[in-house]
C-alpha cells in the first residue's frame, strides 16, 4: 500500500497524543512514523503521521482525526509538493581502519555530520527524506550498526500554503 503523509494541529495539552494514538490503534490504521512538536508562539502542537493506507482508509484517517475535539486542523499533504525530512542518529562500530574510512565517506556522501569520535565508535547525524535514510542505512549496514535512533518524518508543503 502507498505511504501518505498527514499533518495536523492539535491542542498542546496532556492526553492528546494518547487519544490520537488510540484512534489509530482502535481503527486499525497502520502508522509508519509519527512526529510531534510544539508550534512556536501558539498553544498548538503539530503532528505528522506517515501512514500505509489505501484511499478509503486514508480518507477515514483524515475525517476521524478531524472529528476529535482536540484536533484543530488536518491536512493530507500533497506528495508532489511536500518536503519531508527525518533525522537519524547512528552509532557505528569502526575499530577496523578501513571500516572507519568507509563509514566517514558514506556519512559525507549523505551530507551527514560526524558528532562524536571514539577509538572504536563513530556517531553520526544524517537528515533526509525517509527513502534517503533507508538508502544510507543499507550502505552502512555491512560496516556495522551498533545503535540507532530515527525520528520519523517532519513534513511541510512548498509554496504559499499553510496548515493553519
Amino acid at each position, binding site marked *: 500500500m502507498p505511504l501518505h503523509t498527514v499533518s495536523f494541529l492539535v491542542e498542546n495539552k496532556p492526553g492528546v497524543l494518547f487519544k490520537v494514538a*488510540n484512534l489509530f490503534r482502535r481503527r486499525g490504521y497502520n502508522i509508519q512514523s509519527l512526529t510531534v512538536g510544539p508550534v512556536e508562539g501558539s498553544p498548538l502542537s503539530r503532528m505528522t503521521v506517515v501512514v500505509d493506507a489505501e484511499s*478509503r482508509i486514508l*480518507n477515514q484517517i483524515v*475525517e476521524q482525526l*478531524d*472529528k*476529535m*475535539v482536540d*484536533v484543530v*486542523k488536518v491536512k493530507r499533504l500533497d506528495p508532489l509538493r511536500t518536503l519531508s525530512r527525518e533525522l537519524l542518529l547512528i552509532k557505528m562500530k569502526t575499530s577496523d581502519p578501513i571500516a572507519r574510512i568507509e563509514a566517514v565517506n558514506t556519512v559525507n556522501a549523505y551530507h551527514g555530520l560526524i558528532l562524536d569520535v571514539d577509538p572504536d565508535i563513530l556517531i553520526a547525524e544524517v537528515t533526509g527524506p525517509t527513502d534517503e535514510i533507508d538508502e544510507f542505512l543499507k550502505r552502512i549496514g555491512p560496516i556495522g550498526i551498533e545503535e540507532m535512533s530515527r525520528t520519523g518524518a517532519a513534513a511541510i508543503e512548498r509554496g504559499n500554503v499553510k496548515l493553519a
Partner: protein
Amino acid sequence: MTEMTGAEAYVKALEKEGVKYLFGVTGAAIIPICDDLLKSKIRYIGGAHEQGSTHMADGYARVSGHPGVVQVTSGPGATNIVTGLATAQLDSSPVVALTGQVPLSMVGTDAFQEVDIIGITASVTKHNIQVMEAVEIPHAIKSAFYISSTGRKGAVLVDIPKDTQTDKADMVFPDKVEFRGYHPNIEPNSQEMHWAATLLAKARRPVIIAGGGAIASGATMELIELAEMLQAPVATSLMGKGAIPSNHPLSLGLCGMHGRCEANYIVPEADVLLVVGARFSDRTTGSLRGFAPNARIIHIDVDRSEIDKNVDSITRIVGDAKLAIRGIREKVAQQRNTGHTDEDLVKRIKEFKAQSDTLNTSPLSGPEVIRAIRRAMPPDSIVVTDVGQHQMWAAQHYDVRGPGEFFTSGGLGTMGWGTPAAIGAKAARPDLPLLNISGDGSFAMTENNLAIAVDEGFPVTVVILNNGVLGMVAQWQRLFYNRRYSTIQRPKHPDFVKLAESYGATGVKAESTKQIETAIKRSIKEKQTTVIDVPMDPEENVYPMIPPGMGLKDILLGGA
C-alpha cells in the same frame, strides 16, 4: 467571579445547565459533591449498579432530547459505566458522565479505587476531560454538555479528582464555550442539495432509508413530504424507526438482517437511494454486494466521517438532515411534477406488508405478543426494548405513529438496557405510560433496577418474552450450526412474578395475548410497576432473516 469550592461550582454548573435529575451510585471519591447536592434542587436518583444508572441517563436523554447525567465514584464506579457510555455513544445519545477520581497527588499510583477512566473511555466517548484544578470545573462541565448535545450527539465524560472538589477558587461560569477543533453546525451545501434534487427528480425508482439522524434532527415531517412528492418508499434502520408512521402507504419498515419483506425486496430495486442520517451498518445493509446494487447513493449525515466509510455515495451532504431535506424538497419541487400517487408501488408495498405480518400468527408467537402489546398501549406512550429476538419482533411489528415512541439499543446491542432506560425515559416523560419489551436473558441482567422504579415513583411495565434461552444465539445455532446448541441455556431463572413482588412491584404470568393486554392496561391504569412474564416457545425464530454475509434479497421467510 465568586470564590467557592470545586464541589459547589460543580453543583452550580449543573443547575445552570438545567439538570433536573442526576442518576448514579455514590462513593468515596465524590463525597464532597454529594454533600453540596444536599443544598440543590437537582433530584438524585440512586441506582443499584452504575451500568443501570448510565442507561437511565441514556433513556432520559433519548426521550427528552437533553443530556442525561450520570454521576459515579472512581475506580469500579467508573468502570461500571463503560457499557452504558458505549451504548449511548454508538446510538448518538447525549449522555454526560461525571466521575470522581482519587486526589491528583495520588493519580498514577494505583491508589485505592483508582482507574485511568480517561484512557478506558477514550474509544467509547465523543470526548473526555480530566479536571486538573478546581477552577476548571465550570468550564469542563459546560463543555461536556455542549459537546454531547451538539452536532452528532454522544457521550462525554468529565473526571474530577477529589482534591479539585474541595479546593477553593474564584469561579467563572461561562455562558458559552468554544473550541478551535470543534465546529458542529455545518450548513448543508446548496450545490450538493441541488445535485441530490436533480438525481431524485429524474429517478425512476427512488428509495429513502432513514436512520437515527433523521429523528435526531427532527426531519421527519420534511422527510415524509419529500417521500410523498417523489413517491419514494421509506425504509428505516433500527434507529430510524418512527421516521415515518408504520401505517403510511410508503412505509417499508425496518430494513436489513431482520428487516421486513417490503424493505428488503424494494430497497435493492432502487435506482437512486437517499440515505438520511444512517451509517450503513452491516445489520442494515446485509452484504454490500446485494445492497442496492444499481443505485446511485445520496448520503446525508451531520458527521462527515460517516460519508464513504462503508458505502460510497455519489452525492454527499454534510449537515443537519432537516435543513438538507428541506433544501432538496424545494429544489425537487422546481424540477418535477408532483402530486400523483404511484398506485402500483403502493399496492406492492401493501402485499409485502401482508406477507411480513402473516409469517407467524400462532397464538403466542413473538409477532402476536408484540401486536398484543401495541393494542394494549395507548397511542400516547413510549416503549423501549432490550436486546435479542424480542427486540427484532418489536422493531418489525410494533407500529408507531412517529418519532419519540420507540427506543432501543441499536449499535451496541446492550442486553439489559431496557429496564433502566425505561426508568430514565419515565423521568423525562412522567405523563406517558412506559413499557419495556424484554426477554428473560436481558431482563435478568438489570432486573435490580425495579427497586428504583418502585422507590422513586417511576412506574414502568416490563413484558418478558420468556423462552428460557438466549434466543438469538439459539436461532443462529439452529439455522447455521445444525442445531448444535451451546452456551444458550440460562442459569435457572427466579420466578419473575415473585421477584417483582419482592421489589414491591406487581408480577403477572400471562399465558395468552388477552391476559397480556389485560395486565398491561391494569399496570397503566394503576400506575404500578409491573412485570408480565410470558412463556414463549424456545424454538421460535425471528423471520424474515438475511443470513450473515448474504444480500437483502436472500431473505429467509421461515422453515428450519
